[in-house]
């Protein structure tokens, strides 16, 4: 750091700028840009590194198992951001200025601090199954039994087992949405809220016409972040079903193909698909960012 300041006076500024930026940029180039390019090439090769053209992609879009993976990923990425953000927003509005707000927030935010692996264990326990004649140890099946139903293998029966995995992700992400949106809601100028109240706006009208438009920016950030996180979801599927019983998603399948099945080409092709799925989300956000910069 001090060396940089002692550089010769002419061009010292440039040396300093380079000194500050270089470590991060070099790491990013080596660790993300270059690998991304290499993976793109890898996706065109077969088991032994030979060039196979688009075979891996053909495999992906023709094999039933691979198609299930793609379908599941789409379900994940639609449901998780939508539900996690809405529940988080509703909760943030409900508890705004309520008594014990901090404690209530902590309860819902807590799953964020728990690893996906830990969450997987927690929820496998909730879904745990025992035969109908035995005592249940999983909460959900006990509830079914209390209502006179047969206990159910929540994680084995496709396609609804995917939904039960998704519930775990929603459980984790809602707290994130809630905390960010709650901070945004607190940032709404009190005068606007007061004015609306004086105009006789109902709670719902206030929510629709003031809260939502004012926190729009935060809402976009939340949905984007959760969407990207969901696309890359790996640990939950890995630890709860290992992708069996038609629950696999692209990120998990990529790991399975590349590191377990010895098919790095297929793994790379799946990673590339993931990239293409994240692309529109990030492009949209980069656009917004550029617009903001122009305003400034």
């Amino acid at each position, binding site marked *: 750091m001090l060396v940089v300041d002692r550089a010769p006076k002419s061009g010292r500024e440039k040396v300093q700028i380079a000194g500050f930026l270089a470590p991060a940029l070099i790491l990013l180039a080596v660790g993300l840009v270059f690998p991304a390019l290499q993976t793109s090439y890898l996706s065109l090769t077969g088991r032994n590194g030979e060039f196979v053209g688009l075979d891996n992609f053909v495999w992906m879009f023709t094999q039933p198992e691979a198609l299930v993976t793609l379908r599941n990923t789409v379900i994940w990425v639609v449901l998780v951001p939508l539900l996690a953000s809405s529940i988080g927003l509703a909760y943030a509005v409900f508890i705004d200025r309520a008594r014990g707000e901090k404690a209530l927030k902590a309860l819902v935010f807590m799953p964020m601090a728990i690893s996906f692996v*830990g969450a997987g264990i927690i929820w496998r326990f909730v879904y745990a199954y025992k035969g109908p004649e035995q005592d249940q*140890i999983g909460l959900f099946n006990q509830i079914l039994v209390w209502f006179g139903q047969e206990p159910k293998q929540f994680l084995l029966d496709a396609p609804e087992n995917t939904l039960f995995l998704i519930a775990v992700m929603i459980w984790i992400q809602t707290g994130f949405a809630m905390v960010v949106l709650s901070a945004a809601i607190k940032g709404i100028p009190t005068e606007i809220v007061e004015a609306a109240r004086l105009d006789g706006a109902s709670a719902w009208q206030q929510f629709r016409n003031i809260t939502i438009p004012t926190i729009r920016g935060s809402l976009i*950030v939340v949905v984007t972040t959760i969407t990207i996180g969901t696309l890359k979801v790996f640990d939950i599927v890995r630890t709860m079903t290992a992708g069996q019983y038609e629950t696999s998603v692209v990120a998990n399948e990529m790991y399975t193909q590349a590191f377990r099945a010895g098919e790095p080409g297929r793994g790379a092709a799946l990673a590339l698909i*993931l990239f293409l799925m994240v692309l529109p989300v990030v492009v949209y956000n980069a656009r917004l960012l550029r617009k903001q910069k122009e305003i400034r």
Partner: protein
Amino acid sequence: MSTLPLENKDLLPDVKDDSTGGRPTMQKRVRQRLTSRTATAAAVVIAVIWTIPTFGLFISSFRPEDNIKGNGWWNVFTDREFTLENYADVLSPGGSQSPNLLSYFVNSLAIVIPGTIFTLVLGSMAAYMFAWGRFRGKDGLFIFVFALQIVPLQMALIPLLQLFTRVLAIGDFQLLPSGTYAQLWVAHTIFGLPLAIFLLHNFIAEIPGEVIEAARVDGAGHSTIFWRIIVPLATPALASFGIFQFLWLWNDLLVALVFSGGGADVAPITQRLAELQGSRGGEWQRLTAGAFVSMIIPLAVFFGLQRYFVRGLLAGGLKG
């Protein structure tokens, strides 16, 4: 806006009750209280649903093995039998059968603390330059770095692994030897940088320009400005991003699986827990206790530092 007179009375309920006969306002107020009651009820329901799964596991981790496997944790309310045996079992060093979580716990710390610090230092340096440096193509480069979040981890894993083992090696000597923490530190730093730079930039860019200009006029270079002005002023943002990064790294499984080489020497606790779950999924007494051992640090960080969380981090970035 036309209802202003009436609404003025709303602010003075006593006056209104007299003048309007009380009825409509009463109704209105009752309705308002009701909606806020439904809201509170809904909030409580959500809070309960969000807490019960963890609570159930927590209770279970203190129950004897036979009880965990025999009946549901809600039975503790009638049958109070608790034990610390599960924790003793997962923490004790033993043969290959033992979960031996304590040593993996230490591994996790050894991975996460340096990983977080590297990301913070390099990220904030770059963020400062993107916010206050003067060079051509700055905005474009910044957007490019932001856009790197596009690259899924999964895409970078294989090439990065090859890079570590083949390219960064001279003969048999590896610059970043496999089976050490170093690979994990570098990998975590790389994957954390785009978001770190983006969020910290937002905060650092909000620091009043006069402060920095004044320092420049006094002849301060970038390093002086960075350490004397930026770092102290951006401490809230650095702290909250640091906390998040710490939690993410602690909870990571994928990067660990790929770069730890599966060895017990460097594997973090999440990896060991996932193994336990895969190989002996029925051993609830170990899984429940193990899960809580792995959660101690993140939960402590979370409850101890939660007031620093979002405020500092989002102050710059999330205005409307």
